[in-house]
């Protein structure tokens, strides 16, 4: 079957958007009703309107933006360090089957250790500084990226590699022209997944340890009884999460437009 008429496609797009909007409004309306009718005590769950108002108010305050800056700074630095170390380690380990086999058990053992277990160590080492957040973020994000890079390096097409070899490309050129491009989609997947996890850990560190940022502000609002403000900040955290996800997906799509996994995604 050929593609639908542009008019039909447009109508569909429109239907999709408006239905989605109805969904969001319905969600907010439900929240509003649950609170106003007292199904959940409005003292603990203020109506959606109050939370949104509180969010809008805090958007005008310096403290809010300061907190967002702290959170995103920890997120960015942590993700960056994890990406660089994860990719380098992935290529080093993946380059030889000896290293791969020798490190396999250790990786499989260290990877599932929950990064939040490091919280007490981070507190002892760094206290309520950004380094505490970084430690958790890097640990959690590193494994995610490393594993994907290892998959990617293992996925290299042997025919392509042998072709490159037969044309006399050395190890460095093969890494540059064969291994790296074919592992690239996996690297992106790893970084995309790690980006979401890094945000979770950044907020966690702020919430539990008290390093500055959005999570800390939420904990403060909660303990201070500023309930509507707390919900406003939770909404803000969600919106930041949405933006992180959308940015990563956009980046992936733009950079990997040549790759089949992306091409087929568009067709479907």
């Amino acid at each position: 079957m050929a593609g639908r008429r542009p008019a039909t496609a447009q109508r569909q797009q429109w239907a999709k958007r408006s239905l989605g909007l109805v969904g969001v409004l319905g969600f907010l309306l439900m929240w509003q009703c649950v609170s106003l009718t007292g199904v959940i005590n409005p003292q603990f769950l203020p109506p959606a309107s109050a939370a949104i108002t509180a969010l809008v108010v805090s958007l005008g305050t310096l403290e809010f933006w300061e907190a967002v800056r702290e959170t995103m700074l920890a997120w960015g630095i942590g993700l960056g360090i994890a990406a660089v170390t994860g990719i380098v380690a992935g290529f080093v380990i993946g380059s030889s089957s000896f290293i791969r086999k020798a490190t396999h058990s250790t990786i499989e053992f260290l990877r599932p250790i929950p990064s939040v277990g490091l919280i007490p160590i981070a507190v002892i080492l760094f206290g309520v500084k950004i380094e505490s957040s970084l430690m958790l973020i890097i640990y959690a994000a590193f494994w995610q990226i490393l594993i994907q890079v290892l998959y990617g390096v293992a996925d290299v097409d042997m025919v392509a590699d042998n072709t490159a070899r037969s044309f006399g490309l050395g190890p460095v050129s093969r890494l540059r022209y064969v291994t790296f491009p074919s592992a690239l989609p996996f690297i992106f997947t790893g970084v995309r997944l790690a980006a979401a996890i890094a945000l979770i850990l950044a907020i966690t560190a702020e919430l539990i340890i008290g390093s500055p940022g959005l999570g800390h502000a939420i904990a403060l609002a909660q303990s201070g009884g500023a309930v509507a403000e707390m919900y406003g900040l939770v909404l803000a955290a969600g919106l930041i999460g949405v933006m992180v996800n959308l940015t990563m997906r956009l980046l992936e799509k733009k950079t990997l437009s040549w790759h089949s996994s992306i091409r087929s995604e568009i067709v479907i």
Partner: protein
Amino acid sequence: MKILKSIAYAVGLPIILIIIWWAATLGTANFYAPSPALLVETFAQVWFSELFLTDVLPSIGRMLAGIALAIMIGITAGLAIGTTRWLRMLLEPTLEFLRAVPPPVLIPVMMLIMGISDSMKIVTIVFGCVWPVLLNTVEGVRAVDSVLSDSSRSYAIGGLARVRHLLIPSASPQIMVGVRQSLSLGLILMVISEMFASSSGLGFSIIKFQRSFAIPEMWSGIALLGLIGVGLSFLFQFVERKALRWYHGQKEVEHAS
């Protein structure tokens, strides 16, 4: 010979790392870094005791209950959303938002609404773990092979039979990806919900040791947490291998050709 070789590969690096650790903690009695022997000793002392029954088992129970509920809810909702176009259009932006909310921020929220209780912790875990399962189920259901779907329809396999024999099995590899993410999220949420607000549980114990500067005890708690994570991961891999034997077999055949 082959088995010996793979054993050597498996234990070689860990042994080297432990020797380095042992050598580094030799002689110098560093307050913050216990030696391997001390850690093992403390571990046995702290956890082979009543604490295991009062704090560790309940934590694990809450986590498993939360994850199990999240998986059930996620698969059910994912099947409904994945097969119903208008429902998908209706809920997509809302779900996109809900899953982007970093789950730890739910802890203060749930604490307000439900107080500090077992059910609050379980609800937090459910709320955090449901999204990976749900979204992966939706993806899996949508990616059901068109020829297989036509085959089922031509044999009048519809309704619940379609769900049971076609949708769930074809989506299962994707669902398992979601379950794996849920497991690690569940463990994180279990620990921090106890660290943030609790007077019992593994997370609480670790923080308590840290605050009282009982450093070897703290390390033993971290080690236990690590063991639980590793155990969960191995359990998952075992179940996944069993449940998706057909999938891995098929992939192998495809790769071989």
